[in-house]
């Protein structure tokens, strides 16, 4: 590939590439591949060659629909563009035949678009139906049949296809019907409405106001803007279809470093790795430090066990993160960057490595980038399975090839960091947002979110939730909206008990406080933290004492042992919790817990020890009676609880698959 010039970028900006008319995009992230996406890709490729079909078969990352892996997106002439979930490899021939021979959508796999319309701006060609109610027996087939019969009666059966959907993105609203291609959506549709919908909406092109679903989707995709859209292995695709490196070019040629930082200040972006420190200020501090070299590090250590936002972004859109790093480096006057990525994320490592190689090849990394005076290069350093290495000073020690033990701050890395030089450490998500801010402006970004927490945040919602997935919402969205509106509520319609945010450093938020809008401040007030974005849903069957113990054990295992409050305090705390959960606690234990927690928070050297008590304290705060019950109930109570938890757990896994059959 030849070296890119400033003119090339300008030309690309003026004239984005024309997309092929027909394509299938297979979402090949770690989750998708584990579910069979790679095999599916091969099967589709075979079918394509066999039938000599002209469609483009593309590799992409993940949109975030983890619950529906493997996921593909299909664009065929004459059909609306759709996502399909649970597209197992053996369905490949069916998919091809349906789309390219019969020109029909497949039943039972469509994930409806989240962009719902209020106006019917095009004649209806497809009707998606799904019964989202909780009643016994799904009425999806009944509605499909009713629509089909009615269409037949009116001689419209050839013009309109009725498709059973897999997921509508709307839950517990009875029968939901979506008219494509406009995406006008009706909810709580009853049998008598079928004829009315056909007469009014399909024949006369009018929207039925009484059925119309007017709530717009809560999600706003800024971080995830290209995830599932671009080929993560192709810089060409990124340049042509995703305004790739345009933000960097703008920064480099139109703005001074100070102006870049000023733009970041307007955006009010705060770090997404946990602490929420203003990004512009971190850059400013690093820039202000006189030095011969400054370093920029992307923190891709994602330690929260059960969160996968950063992995997904690294795997799905590596060039955006690299572009963010380039902009950061330009703003700070750095010529060397590092991606610190967990070795347990081999695919993320591979894709970032490829992105770096490609960028180097076309001159976006190296000396005098795009003919400017700015030079920069970046390389990868692998984490090696130590949670504490997510902490800045430990991460630096690890890059230096040492044990990842934290050191006291100050001095902060922005003053003395890697090899003693000023260093800015930014989270993956933070860097992925940067190009969007440079393209659309800080004010645009600050237009999202709340007064003190601007923009959007990606959450990995898992646990006892119906649809485990990545969710990106503006700050200020409530926990209830995230769990119920976006993710469909609790698995098996159980009652929600609490939501855990912030992973091992965070806390639980009880069901009664689910209407809390999410922001750095509100979560902190409730005794939790935003953290990097893990969000775990728990139902009534989950024991809070056990959950606290799980997180605490994690922190004890991961403590580097450098300072006593964390090493000894954590171990002590775990012993007490273990005793309590076996029904052998005593009345004085809770007071001791508080004392130990307090000591850890105050005296630990790094964030790990300081925050390790959070899960314990917050469960005590909201579910103190559970601890009491264990203490008062004794061993027999403990046995009963753990027995019940097991019984409740056993059948759970089966239910998630039923939808596909």
């Amino acid at each position: 590939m030849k070296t890119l010039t400033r003119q090339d970028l300008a030309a690309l900006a003026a004239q984005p590439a024309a997309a092929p008319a027909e394509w299938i995009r297979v979402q090949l992230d770690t989750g998708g591949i584990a579910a069979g996406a790679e095999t599916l890709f091969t099967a589709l490729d075979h079918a394509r060659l066999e039938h000599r079909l002209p469609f483009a078969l593309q590799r992409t990352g993940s949109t975030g629909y983890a619950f529906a892996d493997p996921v593909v997106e299909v664009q065929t002439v004459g059909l609306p563009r759709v996502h399909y979930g649970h597209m197992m490899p053996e369905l490949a021939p069916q998919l091809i035949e349906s789309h390219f021979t019969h020109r029909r959508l497949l039943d039972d796999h469509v994930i409806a678009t989240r962009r719902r319309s209020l106006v019917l701006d095009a004649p209806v060609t497809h009707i998606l139906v799904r019964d989202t109610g909780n009643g016994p027996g799904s009425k999806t087939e009944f509605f499909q049949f009713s629509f089909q019969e009615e269409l037949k009666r009116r001689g419209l059966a050839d013009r309109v296809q009725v498709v059973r959907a897999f997921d509508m993105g709307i839950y517990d609203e009875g029968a939901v019907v979506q008219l494509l291609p406009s995406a006008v959506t009706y909810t709580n549709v009853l049998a008598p409405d079928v004829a009315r919908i056909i007469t009014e909406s399909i024949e006369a092109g009018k929207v039925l106001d009484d059925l119309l679903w007017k709530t717009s989707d809560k999600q706003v995709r800024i971080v995830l803007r290209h995830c599932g859209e671009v080929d993560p292995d192709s810089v060409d695709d990124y340049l042509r279809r995703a305004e790739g490196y345009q933000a960097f070019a703008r920064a480099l040629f139109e703005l001074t470093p100070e102006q870049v930082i000023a733009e970041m200040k307007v955006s009010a972006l705060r770090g997404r790795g946990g602490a929420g420190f203003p990004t512009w200020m971190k850059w400013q501090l690093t820039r202000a430090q006189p030095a011969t070299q400054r370093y920029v590090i992307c923190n891709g250590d994602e330690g929260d066990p059960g969160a996968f936002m950063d992995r997904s972004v690294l795997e799905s859109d590596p060039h955006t993160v690299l572009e963010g790093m380039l902009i950061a480096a330009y703003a700070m006057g750095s010529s060397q960057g590092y991606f610190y990525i967990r070795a347990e994320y081999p695919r993320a490592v591979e894709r970032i490595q490829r992105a770096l190689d490609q960028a180097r090849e076309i001159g976006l990394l190296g000396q005098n980038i795009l003919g400017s005076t700015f030079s920069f290069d970046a390389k990868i350093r692998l984490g090696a399975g130590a949670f504490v290495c997510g902490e800045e000073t430990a991460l630096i020690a690890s890059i230096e090839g040492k044990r990842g033990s934290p050191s006291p701050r100050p001095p902060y890395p922005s003053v003395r960091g890697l090899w003693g030089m000023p260093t800015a450490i930014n989270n993956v998500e933070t860097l992925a947002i940067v190009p969007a801010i440079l393209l659309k402006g800080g004010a645009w970004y600050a237009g999202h979110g709340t007064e003190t927490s601007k923009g959007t945040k990606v959450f990995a919602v898992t646990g006892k939730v119906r649809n485990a997935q990545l969710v990106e919402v503006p700050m200020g969205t409530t926990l209830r909206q995230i769990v119920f509106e976006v993710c469909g509520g609790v698995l098996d319609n159980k009652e929600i008990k609490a939501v855990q945010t912030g992973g091992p450093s965070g806390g639980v938020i009880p069901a009664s406080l689910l209407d809390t809008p999410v922001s750095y401040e509100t979560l902190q007030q409730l005794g939790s933290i935003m953290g990097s974005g893990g969000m775990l849903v728990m139902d009534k069957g989950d024991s809070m004492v056990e959950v606290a113990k799980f997180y605490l054990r994690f922190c004890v295992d991961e403590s580097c042992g450098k300072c006593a409050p964390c090493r000894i305090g954590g171990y002590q705390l775990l012993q007490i919790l273990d005793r309590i959960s076996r029904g052998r606690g005593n009345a004085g234990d809770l007071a001791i817990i508080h004392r130990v927690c307090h000591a850890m928070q105050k005296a630990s050297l790094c964030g790990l020890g300081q925050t390790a008590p959070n899960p314990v304290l917050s469960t005590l705060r909201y579910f103190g009676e559970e601890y009491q019950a264990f203490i008062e109930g004794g061993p027999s109570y403990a046995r009963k609880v753990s027995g019940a938890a097991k019984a409740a757990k056993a059948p759970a896994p089966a239910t998630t698959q039923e939808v596909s059959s």
Partner: protein
Amino acid sequence: MKTNPPSGSESSIADLRHADEAELIDMLEKAEQKHGFIPREISDEIARLLEVKLERLRRIQGKLDTTIRRDVQQHVAHWRNEEGNLIMILHAIQNQHGYIPREVAMELSRELGVKLARIYEVITFYHYFKLQPPGAHNVTVCNGTACYLKGSGDLINELRTQLGIAEGQTTPDRQIHFETVRCIGCCGMAPAMVVDGKTCGHVKTSDVAGHLANLRAKKETAA
């Protein structure tokens, strides 16, 4: 006229080339029992063969050492000009061997001029680095939060019972290594388990026996 060698020795000497040391010594004893003494030609031949074997052993050992040295030199050369390269070199070694063999760590210590103790200090700090060779087959249960909440604890218990070992250990026959990890990135399919590199989602405790039986069957066909 040439005296016949003691009966049977002709063929047995031919066979001896493939015998190991224990068999050779066994031959000596047998010969002694049979003849009441050890005929010269047999003892000479056996001594020669033992010598050959010893020589071969030394050669293999030497070759091993040079192979190790060459590999380590290659890894080090690749990272030569990088500050803080130790962890990346350890990753390369583990990628090659599946763990960090002691001889390799020692060679690395010589090559880098870094104390062996410091290398071990780093290896032991990071969970990712292993000091034991992996089993022929590997079963890894995810114990991240999502999987934990959906019953990974039961899977771990089931595996402990069925394999008779705890996580982090390998069965005595070195066939199956059992491990837990934190989040393998398939939380949508929790609880998840990786069996010889293949990820299985929505695993139930009742599935465990089947997975293990498959592995053991693989082992039989491989043997």
